[in-house]
């Protein structure tokens, strides 16, 4: 076969000439420059935005932080905006940490079980339905969940869970009563339960992503050793996915820490320690949303800003921890070849 000069592998002469044409000035200079400038500016503005928020929060809160010192502020147990004008954020820090961690502990295993079920066991149509329902939970505005909590969950929990436990403790273990607290329905326990419901979608979705990204070779290798379906999951899937699962859990914790509306509606809003299991409490977001309108004193407003700043720092730490743990526990490459 002889090759015609005009129709070589690159097709016609015309096509060849177009391919050899030097790139236009616009293409080489302007387009590239503009694109680079836009991208860099947008990227930098995100950093600036985050830094600016931190700076403003710190600046506005600095009056309170100066007055009590940062450590004194986060460890102070008295929050009295009315008489003494003393502000210590420890009750809210405590409430935030306890409700979020407890919510994560409650939701973690169910969420992982749901993820395993939808990723590995459920037929496709059922998995699709469950996935959509879970996403729906994430899409419901938290104020709606809050109002459901106020009118449905809290009374139900009070009548069917808290009161029976309380009366049992009253009769046989009176020493437990201060720990249990007043079972009015609005308190730490209800807020924690609602929080755990609200973070299930995040843990589930991220766990499912992690499970789905386990290479099929890993599954087949364990199958070929005679593993049953569950053994494949235990031996090959979950260990491989552990980084993603851990990241999902920590990011869910971040969601729980920052959740405001539903918690403020359900936690009972009591600003003084001691908190009890059924009794009222408060978290950092809930105290901010409850008091910012009434904060007439400069120091009060500044203290709320300082609470916001503390929350910002905690969120930052949680996200950094998630990034670090993901990197540490993720499988890099897995099969090195």
């Amino acid at each position, binding site marked *: 076969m002889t090759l015609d000069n005009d129709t070589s592998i690159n097709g016609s002469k015309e096509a060849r000439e177009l391919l050899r044409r030097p790139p236009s000035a616009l293409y080489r200079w302007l387009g590239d420059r503009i694109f680079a400038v836009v991208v860099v500016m947008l990227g930098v503005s995100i950093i600036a935005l985050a830094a600016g928020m931190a700076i403003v929060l710190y600046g506005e809160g600095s009056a309170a932080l100066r007055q009590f010192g940062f450590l004194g502020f986060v460890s102070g147990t008295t929050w009295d905006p009315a008489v003494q004008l003393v502000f210590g954020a420890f009750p809210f820090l405590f409430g935030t940490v306890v409700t979020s961690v407890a919510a994560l502990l409650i939701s973690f295993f169910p969420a992982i079980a749901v993820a395993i079920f939808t990723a590995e066991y459920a037929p496709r149509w059922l998995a699709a339905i469950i996935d959509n329902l879970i996403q729906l939970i994430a899409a419901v505005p938290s104020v709606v969940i809050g109002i459901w909590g106020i009118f449905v969950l809290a009374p139900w929990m009070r009548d069917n869970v808290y009161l029976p436990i309380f009366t049992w403790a009253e009769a046989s273990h009176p020493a437990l009563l201060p720990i249990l607290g007043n079972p009015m329905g609005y308190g730490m326990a209800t807020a924690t339960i609602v929080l755990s419901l609200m973070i299930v979608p995040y843990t589930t979705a991220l766990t499912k992503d992690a499970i789905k990204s386990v290479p099929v070779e*890993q599954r*087949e290798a364990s199958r*070929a*050793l*005679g593993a049953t379906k569950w053994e494949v999951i235990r031996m090959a899937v979950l*260990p491989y996915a552990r980084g993603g699962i851990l990241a999902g859990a920590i990011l869910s914790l971040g969601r729980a820490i920052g959740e405001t509306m539903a918690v403020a509606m359900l936690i009972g809003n009591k600003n003084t320690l001691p908190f009890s299991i059924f009794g009222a409490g408060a978290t950092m977001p809930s105290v901010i949303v409850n008091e910012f309108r009434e904060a007439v004193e400069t120091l009060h407003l500044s203290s709320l800003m300082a609470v916001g700043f503390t929350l910002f720092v905690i969120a930052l730490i949680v996200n950094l921890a998630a990034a670090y743990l993901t990197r540490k526990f993720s*499988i890099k490459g*897995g099969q090195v070849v």
Partner: protein
Amino acid sequence: MNLIQSITSKVPTLPLFATSESRQASGAAEVKTSTGTNTAPGTGKAENKMRMETHDLSVHYGSTMGVRNVSLPIYDKQVLALIGPSGCGKTTYLRALNRMHDLTRGARVTGSVMLDGKNIYDSEINPVIIRRRIGMVFQKPTPFPTMSIYDNVVAGLKLVGIRKRNVLDEVCERALKQAALFDEVKDRLNSPGSSLSGGQQQRLSIARALAVDPEVMLMDEPTSSLDPQSTNRIEDLIHELKKQVTIVIVTHNMQQAARVSDKTAFFYVGDLIEYGPTNSLFTKPKEKRTEEYITGQFG
């Protein structure tokens, strides 16, 4: 079984079995476990008994046909090589031999696969048990990355509930020796399996498959992701292993098929075109397509 003994007892008799063709000259000179003892295909001893057999085996994926009506015998303690161009059903056929298609959505297997006279697709047969008897090594090395070398090797034993440390230790050492990996890793059994090189990882995968003492070993292009030196080691290993297990190997590399196998089957577009002793298939193929393929005219 004691591998070292079986090798040393074989060494003096080696020249009797070795043929000049299709073998590396170095094989007989070395005495270490990793070298081939090079029993020539079908020469020097009586034909082994049949271990597995497929009858009219077909695999469909949805509406497309992966493999069509393949009937093949697989002889005990021999190596059967499956060759052919990409996408012609070799791997599909191989995976039907230990019911790996059970896991693929939409895959359907018809016909029968007999293991010691029993159809492994019978409804009362548990595929988990079948996969313990018929081990598999994949194209990519697949160590479990979160497990140590030791835990990787004994993973299959732990699945059946063996927890006794001394049993695990013994099997681990035996399997690693069989896979010619023991000397390289004996001092670091607790480091992660993924810390090994690619060739070592593949031998680790082989050791892991051997640890559960399978009767048949399926290998799906076990050297395609490895460098030539690691490939040589695995090929030597196959020569050793076939004294104890029956091996079916898929390979793209015809020289490899010629070097390691006793029987060869040539697949083309889902059909078994030709099957026969490796020597005769490569020297005087009966089918025109086989000849074209092995002489490099297509594929």
